[in-house]
């Protein structure tokens, strides 16, 4: 599904995650009988439904959750899947888009903050691979960080893809004709998207300016137990 990079306006493609594997991020946050279950993972939407039930059963069993969780989990995953599938048939415009992806997460004792540019046109991109390499390079020992990073990236990509779909839909309704539509996706969708032409034109250089270096560096923090507790308490309070 690689589109030629020459024209800035490309024919609309069918909606899909702009990654090598069409996996979607799923987030669960269910509360039953005072027990709270929060989780997030990647799911393959083409797995059969039996897979879903199987997964829910195992999760309930492994984590020793109350059996009331089972239908809720199944329902939640199914609704997120349905949302994805509803977008699936539609078109999305992908211009020359390089988007910044921001990471700002806390997983157990590790806090990671990072920012980098991601090419939306590259349908061979692999957030999992990226997350694995990042963890290895930064020497992160907690194995749960990797999946969280991959998930965060996927979620952001998903958001952007959805925005592209909605902008495509609006463009179709918009009667100004094709010419105007050319500029719409680029300028309208997600103002943080950089214009390739501007970035790599002959006037500016490809090398990043020094003052921007700090923005794009990964910051890794290991918290102590008290910090973790304090943060968790704060999150719960803000969540309520």
């Amino acid at each position, binding site marked *: 599904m690689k589109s030629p990079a020459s024209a800035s306006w490309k024919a609309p493609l069918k909606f899909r995650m702009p990654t*090598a*594997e069409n*996996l979607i991020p799923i987030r669960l946050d269910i509360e039953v009988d005072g027990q709270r279950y929060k989780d997030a*993972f*990647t*799911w*393959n939407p*083409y*797995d*059969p439904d*039996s*897979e879903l039930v*199987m*997964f829910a059963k*195992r*999760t309930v*069993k*492994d*984590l020793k959750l109350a059996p009331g969780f089972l239908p809720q989990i199944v329902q939640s995953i199914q609704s997120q899947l349905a949302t994805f599938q509803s977008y699936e048939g539609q078109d999305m415009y992908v211009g020359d888009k390089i988007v910044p992806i921001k990471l700002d997460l806390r997983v157990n004792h590790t806090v990671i903050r990072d920012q980098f540019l991601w090419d939306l046109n590259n349908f*061979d991109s*692999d957030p*999992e*691979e990226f*997350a*694995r390499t990042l*963890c290895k390079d930064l020497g992160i020992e907690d*194995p*749960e960080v*990797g*999946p969280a*990073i*991959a998930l965060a990236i996927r979620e952001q990509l998903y958001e952007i893809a959805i925005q592209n779909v909605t902008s495509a839909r609006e463009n179709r309704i918009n009667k100004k004709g094709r010419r105007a539509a050319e500029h719409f996706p680029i300028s309208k969708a997600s103002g943080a998207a950089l214009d390739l032409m501007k970035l790599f034109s002959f006037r500016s250089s490809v090398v990043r300016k020094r003052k921007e270096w700090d923005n794009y560096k990964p910051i890794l923090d290991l918290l102590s137990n008290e910090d973790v507790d304090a943060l968790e308490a704060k999150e719960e309070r803000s969540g309520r």
Partner: protein
Amino acid sequence: MAEKSPVKEAASSESVPISNSVQLKPSPQFSAKFTTPTPPNSDVPSTPTNRPPPVDADVIHVPSYSRWFSWDKIDSCESRFLPEFFDGRSPSKGPSLYMYYRNSIIKLFRENPSRKITFTDARRNLVGDVGSIRRVFDFLDHWGLINYSASSALSKPSKDTASNIKSSDSPSLESPSTAAPTPKQSSTSRRFCGACKSLCTIACFVCDKYDSTLCARCYVRGNFRVGLSNADFRRVEISDEANADWSEKETLLLLEATMHYGDDWKKVAQHVGGRTEKDCVAHFVKLPFGEEYLGHPLLDDAESGFETNKRVRLTPLSDASNPIMAQAAFLSALAGVEIAEAAAQAAVNILSKVDDTTASRGDNGSLERNSRQESEISSNGDTNQNASERAYADANSQLNKEEEDIGRAITEITEVQMKEIQDKILRFEEMDLLVEKERQQLESMKNLLFIDQLNLSFRRN
């Protein structure tokens, strides 16, 4: 099984019957291992040199059927059971990804081998989509590479799912009623569906490729693993006899009756009592012939299961009216002629020895019967040999015929192509002629024009 010797021994003796039933794939290395079970101690060296075993020498028990495992390599059975990583359909899901999943799950388990790791632990720590992680986890679980500690109370090693191997015998089933079955039950097995774990009653669908069993409902709903289609399943009827299992006594009566009455199944049914004729015949045919009595591994159930497809055509006496001979012929054809002969001879010898020493035993009758049957088998070996030779010659002649056919077809094709080329050449020649004529015409016209020009210039001057 074995007496309570050190844990390792117990594990090894447990491994053998498990491998008996889980041995579904016929790669020759498995049958070799099958006859020489070594204690699982020797499995620790499966960890290669670059991963030193933990200093306090915790021995990790791995069942003998998983001896192929190594950190750096991918075995063929892995690529068979988890083809999604190896068929190149998606660019990022490759063998290296599979190895990353597999090695991390196993490392995670081995950090704390006395505790079973759950799927959720594993998937929380791995980057990737949970569906494929689950499949790898189930695969490892089923092959005993994780969660296999002999100390666990209820060894329910794997959760069968539609994508997993289905063994027709007890260990991987969850229902507690499977405490009952003896090794005999491997032939009259209760079929449990791999996907929904319900007892299959009427008919079940077996997939030979991945050897999974589905009940009719799951099959219809399409509850099979990714990559399979409806066509891969074949229908297997389960008779009601599976619900009423044959006890030892009944089987004994049946055998006695068969010896006495031979083919008269009415009398046999009477003798057995409580079974219809059809049941008797069906059960008799299904008996794993002579195995329990002799303790001889005449055959490998697994081998027969696989090779049935290939060798079905070669059973020479398959339509013999005598069911004993049919069974014997079938089995010996599957095992191979020399093997069957050797086994039969050995069995007869040992039986005669055993006969002498245990002459007063109550089960003498059955032994005698079996010795008679064994001698019949050995005499059958000869006829089998001729039959298989004939079959071999037939196969050869068919091969030759096919080769000739192919040769002929190729020559025809080349002839046709040459004719085509000839026709083309002819046509080109004709075209050439035409073009030549045109050229000459043009030349003459040019000449005329020249003459006219000359005339004109003459007139002027």
